[in-house]
């Protein structure tokens, strides 16, 4: 087969696949669609091991799978996407692997910084949730730069949890709340000294809503589904506060194998339990 024929065939196949994909998305969109999807990208190392590749290759393929999933989610109209990129527990791994992951994250964040114009054109906002001080300096700076450059966007919200733990997020919220109340208490004290009326901000009990305001996820709705690939059944300290009425799914494929058909299946499963979850959310709201 000559090269022009090959190119034409590839072009036709690509167009056909695109059409099929659009049809699948159109059918899925008839039912209740997701507002927020979260991924625990598990299985990169196993993927590399099974295929006798270098461990790092698994993580790189995982990144490609992430970008593809982001594009599919965007096409489906999912507005919030959150991924568990690096857990605080992952620092316990072999130092060489941690170093590799840090370098990979720095490389990918810098690539995204180079494509800033594209990202801003589609109004994608990128957040980094976690204790950024635990990252190496270059990664931290790159992450802060990317967050700052997309902060004004109001389209797709892509949140990367790194390095993140749900319990650490809760403690961080408590610390911020304490600092806020301390400041209010100081202002009250000064207000009292100057004869101004005091408010009761520092004296009321802390509520769930107060803690919500200081979570990294403040401003994002709770996830509709959390997908953990490679079939593992635990959350591993991910979004424990935010997943009260979230459908937890654990499909068997490893993260680099996660593709449109797995995503479509996940959405179909979610649509089956949607009435139950909505009912529970409404009941919970009524009780507040």
């Amino acid at each position: 087969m000559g090269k022009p024929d090959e190119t034409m065939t590839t072009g036709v196949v690509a167009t056909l696949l695109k059409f099929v994909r659009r049809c699948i998305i159109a059918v899925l969109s008839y039912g209740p669609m997701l507002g927020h999807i979260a991924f625990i990208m598990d299985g990169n190392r196993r993927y590399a091991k099974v295929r006798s590749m270098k461990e790092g290759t698994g993580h790189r393929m995982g990144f490609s799978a992430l970008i593809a999933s982001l594009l599919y989610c965007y096409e489906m109209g999912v507005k919030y996407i959150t991924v568990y990129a690096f857990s605080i527990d992952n620092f316990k791994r072999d130092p060489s692997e941690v170093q590799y992951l840090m370098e990979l994250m720095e490389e990918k964040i810098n690539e995204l910084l180079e494509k800033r114009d594209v990202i801003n054109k589609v109004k994608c906002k990128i957040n980094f949730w976690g204790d950024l001080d635990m990252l190496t300096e270059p990664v931290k700076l790159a992450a802060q730069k990317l967050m700052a450059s997309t902060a004004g966007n109001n389209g797709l919200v892509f949140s990367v949890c790194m390095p993140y733990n749900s319990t650490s997020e809760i403690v961080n919220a408590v610390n911020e709340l304490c600092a806020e109340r301390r400041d209010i208490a100081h202002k009250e004290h000064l207000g009292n000294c100057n004869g101004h009326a005091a408010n009761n901000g520092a004296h009321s009990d802390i509520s769930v809503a107060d803690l919500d305001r200081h979570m990294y996820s403040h401003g994002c709705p709770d996830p509709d589904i959390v997908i953990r690939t490679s079939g593992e059944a635990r959350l591993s300290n991910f979004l424990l506060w935010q997943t009260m009425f979230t459908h937890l799914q654990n499909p068997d494929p490893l993260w680099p194998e996660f593709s449109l058909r797995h995503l479509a299946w996940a959405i179909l499963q979610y649509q089956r339990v949607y009435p139950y979850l909505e009912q529970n959310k409404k009941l919970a709201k009524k009780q507040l």
Partner: protein
Amino acid sequence: MGTKAMDAFVANETPVFMNKPPPHVFKLMSLPSAVLNLALGSLWCIIHVVISLFSLFSHLTFNLECFLISSGLLRKYRNLQLSRIKYLAIVVDSREAKNTVKINQLLCWLKTLGVKYVCLYDIDGVLKKLFEPSMNGSKDEKSGDYLDVSANIKALDGCHRAMTLECISGSDGKEGIAKAANLLCSTYLNGDRSGHENVKSESVFTETDMASALKSVGCGGPEPDLLLVYGPARCHLGFPAWRLRYTEIMHMGPLKSMKYGAIVKALYNFSKKHQNYGK
């Protein structure tokens, strides 16, 4: 998808971002939208009907497997190793939790299997109220809500071993964390007031501090190794976050169709799990 193919796909599809608005509403120019809507709706319904049929078939197969497990015909489930399960938690949908017969039967099964510690959770506190009369008499303030309910279970046949039962509800979840946060904050603010007023020290509470605070407000408790969810969906319904970090979560289906074999299978599958804890 190979790496090169994936990268090529990504390179091809990025223009989607550039030129078009979110394309999730797909319009064919030549057909009226009402007909298109009807076609999409019909396809969607058909897909869900097909999934439901497959689900029914797999449910029937699962029921058969549970029957075989209960009868002891499947060898691998005969000698269950429960050494790794120190704490088991059960999340029940609050509407199903009112079915006291099923709850007691479930507890009896777990006792028979040799589970030593069970934590029952439902968001509305139905289970707490259910076991409240027997708990009030023997509540040990120091150890929280732990209680030996062999008295409750002894009434059922075939249950001889002692089992510790804990009942928690939605108020022990986020609200419990808020109470603990309140405790920490008051300690901090009181310390701030009694110390040097002009020195602004940042609060640096750690996860250990939070865990102690949770224990002080009565929301401490062991982290379950395994959580069984009884309800229509695999959803933890607000189970206390601090106790859910590395817990294996398994969905068991509705409580009304619970099976002894399903519990055995879940415990067996758990015994085969291996956790890295982040490593």
